[in-house]
């Protein structure tokens, strides 16, 4: 098992169609992404050297990925020397097994969690539940998702698809200590969550976190968050278990400095991140006395072997690409069938999981290739380039689509010869009176119906450009 594909997940176009029809969802998404998009643009525009920072971020990640084996071994050495224990997990099943065993060894059946994409990716909460261990999400948005038996739909704001009245309803229904007269005022909702979580923080003996960055030279782990819940989880419990994708390592603190500028401005549009926690192994008498680091591969090594696709491993999970993506804003996060939605999900999921399932084979096509994601990406991942690369893979190795394949082959055959193209144009022009009305076509047959279901098509002209050129000698006759 690599990453669970949500059971029975349909291909992207079908899931997206349902989302497009949901006006409240589209409204929530348009409002939320629009606000954060404008704020990000302003935060980035403040820095004269943003282009240089972005280039530095790209280079540091590429360098680290090039020498990943070295930096991971260095990290292991330093974490171990500082009193931590490092575990290597090949895939999701192995990582879940390791974490479950570590928790069981403490004798506890409850853990608090800091928001983490890696543990979403491996389906840790569900795996722990099967072992009789309850994981409590402590990030506000993750809590909303968890209480609502819902799925995250955004990397940074997992409950972005919910508005505040929906959140109030979830809290009233599922949070036992929520005030019965809870309103949908953001401050009241936050206060209810704060009281609910405070009890969990004070009683928790084990915490599970992800990792934003790991500094190899000192073996220091770094988590960035905005609510302080992470700080609680990372300092109060006796045992801390952190699950980290192997691409999260950076060589030095100087390298980290670049990302501490790139990440907050790109994700929350803040100049500085509110809570940045860094820890190195264990410190006697202060904080967790037992620390475990689980290094997760889960397909990353094979992504690294792909010369075009590997740039996806530069990702620092900022969500800037989601917030600028016009497709994400209309399809919503759930349509991507993975904890990684949006443009980055469209290139990460099919690489980590492969292109075998309908949703994974459709994800590379879930983009108009408009390039807004590349423009916003703080580590310059050329997402359109990877999408097109993955499309070629789908055509060569993915599920067969005989109709589309035949149509594309026929188009290719026609376009390879100017004579065949001219003939096709004459046929099109001859058909114009049959199918068009006042120059417009309201209904096309076959796969082209997908076009005319929602928009008119132009009727072919009486003659093509090349026919006109020949007839008039380029307009001179």
């Amino acid at each position: 098992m690599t990453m669970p594909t949500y059971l029975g997940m349909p291909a992207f176009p079908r899931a997206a169609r349902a989302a497009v029809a949901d006006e409240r969802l589209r409204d929530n998404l348009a409002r939320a992404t629009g606000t954060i998009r404008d704020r990000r643009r302003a935060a980035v525009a403040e820095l004269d050297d943003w282009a240089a920072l972005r280039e530095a971020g790209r280079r540091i990640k590429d360098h680290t990925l090039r020498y990943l084996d070295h930096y991971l071994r260095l990290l292991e050495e330093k974490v171990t020397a500082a009193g931590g224990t490092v575990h290597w997990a090949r895939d999701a099943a192995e990582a879940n097994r390791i974490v479950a065993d570590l928790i069981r060894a403490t004798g506890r059946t409850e853990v608090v969690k800091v928001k983490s994409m890696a543990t979403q990716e491996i389906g840790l909460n569900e795996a722990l539940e099967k072992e009789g261990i309850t994981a409590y999400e402590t990030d506000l948005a993750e809590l909303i998702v968890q209480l609502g038996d819902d799925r995250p739909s955004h990397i940074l704001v997992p409950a972005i698809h919910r508005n505040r009245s929906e959140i109030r309803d979830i809290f009233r229904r599922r949070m036992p200590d929520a005030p019965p007269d809870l309103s949908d005022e953001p401050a009241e909702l936050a206060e209810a969550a704060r009281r609910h979580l405070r009890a969990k923080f004070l009683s928790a003996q084990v915490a599970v976190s992800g990792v934003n960055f790991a500094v190899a030279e000192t073996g220091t782990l770094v988590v960035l968050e905005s609510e302080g819940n992470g700080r609680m989880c990372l300092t109060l419990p006796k045992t801390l278990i952190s699950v980290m994708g192997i691409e999260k390592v950076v060589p030095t603190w100087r390298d980290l400095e670049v990302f501490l500028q790139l990440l907050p401005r790109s994700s929350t549009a803040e100049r500085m991140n509110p809570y940045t926690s860094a820890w190195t192994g264990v410190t006697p008498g202060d904080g967790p006395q037992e620390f475990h680091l689980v290094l997760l591969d889960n397909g990353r090594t094979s992504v690294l072997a792909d010369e075009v696709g590997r740039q996806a491993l530069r990702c620092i999970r900022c969500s800037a690409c989601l917030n600028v993506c016009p497709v994400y804003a209309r399809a919503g996060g759930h349509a991507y069938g993975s904890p990684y939605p949006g443009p980055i999900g469209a290139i990460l999921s099919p690489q980590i999981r492969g292109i075998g399932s309908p949703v994974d084979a459709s994800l590379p096509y879930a983009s108009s290739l408009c390039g807004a994601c590349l423009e916003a990406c703080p580590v310059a991942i050329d997402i359109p380039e990877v999408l097109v690369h993955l499309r070629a893979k789908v055509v060569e190795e993915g599920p067969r689509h005989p109709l589309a394949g035949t149509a594309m082959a026929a188009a290719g055959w026609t376009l390879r010869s100017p004579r065949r193209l001219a003939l096709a144009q004459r046929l099109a022009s001859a058909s114009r009176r049959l199918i068009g009305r006042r120059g417009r076509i309201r209904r096309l047959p076959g796969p082209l119906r997908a076009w005319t279901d929602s928009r008119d098509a132009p009727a072919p002209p009486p003659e093509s450009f090349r026919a006109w050129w020949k007839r008039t000698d380029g307009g001179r006759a």
Partner: protein
Amino acid sequence: MRIALFVTCLNDTMFPGTGQAVVRLLRRLGHEVEFPSAQTCCGQMHFNTGYRKQVLPLVRNFAETFAPYEAVVTPSASCAAMIRDWHPRLDDAARDTAAKVHELTEFLVDVLGVTDVGAYYPHRVTYHPTCHSLRMLGLGDRPLRLLREVRGLELVELPDAAECCGFGGTFALKNPAVSAAMGADKAARVRRTGADALCAADNSCLMHIGGVLTRTAGPAVRTVHLAEILASTEEDPS
């Protein structure tokens, strides 16, 4: 200077008026263009959809057809970007020809050094910067500089202009619901400008937005390629 017109397969087949406008415009500026009839397609549709095997013959045909010319002009930012960005990476022999390809507004502003092309177009016009013209080719304000010099033309700003219209090539067929939703939002913003014409540097996107505009209720807005506005004169209006 020997100038060739790469009209593109879409314009050739569906929008001959755009190719004719380029010929008329350049002729008015004192330049004859040739139309090498061996030309077909830049291969973008097949490339972007993942049908790589179909692409290479098209890249080779393009490079061979246009090799003899000093400049190649095309009224499509999207195809120009495909040729300049990808042809050399797909076939090294295509490098020299690809470098000679100019999108029309680049050719006018950068090569010929003109922004006032002597056009007359008495309409309220808004401009949609297509994604590939904006983010791949980097046309910048060239189209706007040309439009501002057109006599009689009132240029109105399109809100959220840089957002994709939802065409996206085969995306329009593979993800019709999202594509149409994006198109509807774009069309609504176009209508709100009160423009009676929408122009762009790509007929593909205009075909999509125009198809939504004629399908949905509201004041009529015509879609017109930038080249046709620039070719338009008082004596010979587009």
